[in-house]
């Protein structure tokens, strides 16, 4: 980094254990091919990403609902310059799609040529396990 005189700081490796107890059905659902959201039993608001507590009425009484898989793409970008922990990936397309439940989802968009991707087009939202074994979800070409 430095072209000027400098000393190296002590090295630390940081890995956090992120709690997922309260959204566990979501992460388990991905493994079964389902994308789950939460719905507040008190006020009816649907949340994606799923939450345990309602920011609209502050109740903590949620039910799990499966989302539809049909999305309309509202915007997208193709990420060429990638962060350290994504250096091993090829450039990827990130999109935001709106589902008929009214919630929006941000995820990678796969299965299209970049020149085919347009604002307003349809895409299918599917659960997926990455080659490294991590549950995730992507937009892909509708059948």
């Amino acid at each position, binding site marked *: 980094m430095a072209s000027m005189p400098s000393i190296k700081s002590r090295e630390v490796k940081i890995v956090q254990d992120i709690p997922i107890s309260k959204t566990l059905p979501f992460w388990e659902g991905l493994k079964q091919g389902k994308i789950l959201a939460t719905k507040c039993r008190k006020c009816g608001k649907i949340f994606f990403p799923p939450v345990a507590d309602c920011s609209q009425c502050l109740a903590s009484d949620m039910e799990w609902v499966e989302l539809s898989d049909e999305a309309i793409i*509202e915007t997208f*970008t193709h990420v060429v*310059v990638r962060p350290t922990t994504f250096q091993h990936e090829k450039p990827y397309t990130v999109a935001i799609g709106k589902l008929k439940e009214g919630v929006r*989802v941000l995820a990678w968009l796969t299965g299209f040529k970049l020149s085919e991707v347009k604002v307003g087009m349809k895409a299918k939202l599917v659960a997926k396990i990455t080659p490294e074994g991590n549950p995730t979800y992507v937009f892909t070409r509708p059948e």
Partner: protein
Amino acid sequence: MRKVAIIGVGSSKFGVRNDVNVAELAFEAFKPSIEDAGITPKDIEFVAVGSTGAGAWYEELLPAVVSAEYCGLTGAGLVRCEAACASGSAAFATAYWTVASGQAEIAAALGIEKMREIDTPTMMEWIGRAGYYLWEFHNFGVTFPAYYALYATAHMARFGTTEEDLALVAVKNHKYASMNPIAHLQNRITVDDVLSSMIIAAPLKLFDCCPVSDGAASIILASEEKVKELKIDTPVWVAGIGFASGTANMSKRLDYVGLEASVSASQKAYKMAKVTPDQLDVAVVHDCFTIAEIMAYEDIGLCKKGEGAKLIREGQTEIGGKIPVNVDGGLKAKGHPIGTTGCSMVNELTKQLREEAVEKGRQAPMKNYVALAHNVGGTGHYCYVTILRR
């Protein structure tokens, strides 16, 4: 609340500053600001520091403490403010409230950021995490340019804004940075240079993006009584401060053609200052990416929604146009040391309002002596709008 004035400003040189550590960089901005005000460090009762990367992109966890000691400020009330890229404005607002409330007679806002001690992919990693790590970075690696590229795609699809329009913002801001000795990038560029630069996150290219910069800026604020006592010649008054925030998840925003937080914060600031957008003589807006400047024109009411590109095409935001914007080079070319930017904006506007202090060729003509700073944190996560009046 009582009247509060800016009585001193200072800035370091922006750029790759591997010749100084964080405290030394702070000193470079702080010393000229107290000389400008004609005070000593012991006169300052409260210090609010804007800085974002403590422990991440530079080594100190408590930059307020190390900088305060280095500048002779130990003993004053001290806090570090975090509002991402608007941390400098949050620090300025905090210092303002301390004086306006009567708790201090003189306070300082100090923006300090040291971003060039780590490599670029690690910087992309840290800043990409500045959103909602769990839901948008962990699985999807959304970088900061990518977040603003999502806005660019939507704005282009909705309003017909083009990549050439975005390039015009970069060309304008580089032009003014070339006249600003503290600017990080002082080279002039053309539309073709922007369009042919490498893609970072499509449709944004390298020259659509601000550089990663080191830099510090310091602002001294005082009560009206102190202004009289110190016989300050040209106090610049804080006329209005507006603030707002946006959702952590980008997926929860209502649309991708503007920032709701900018609209809300600017309306609050105009109301407090009792001014309208057409009364502004000069503005600095948050142009971390070229699309951000075009959205800012629309969000703070310099033009109608969807007409931002028209404003830049017509040259209305250049000196001689309707409202000069970012005549210091903006974040785009002056540089964007994240937590410093809000204080740097106030530094620039104070000098603009004093007229004589700005380098020839980039002084905005003054009619009403009213100026506005628009500072966004994250991708519309935070927004502060500050209106100053001489």
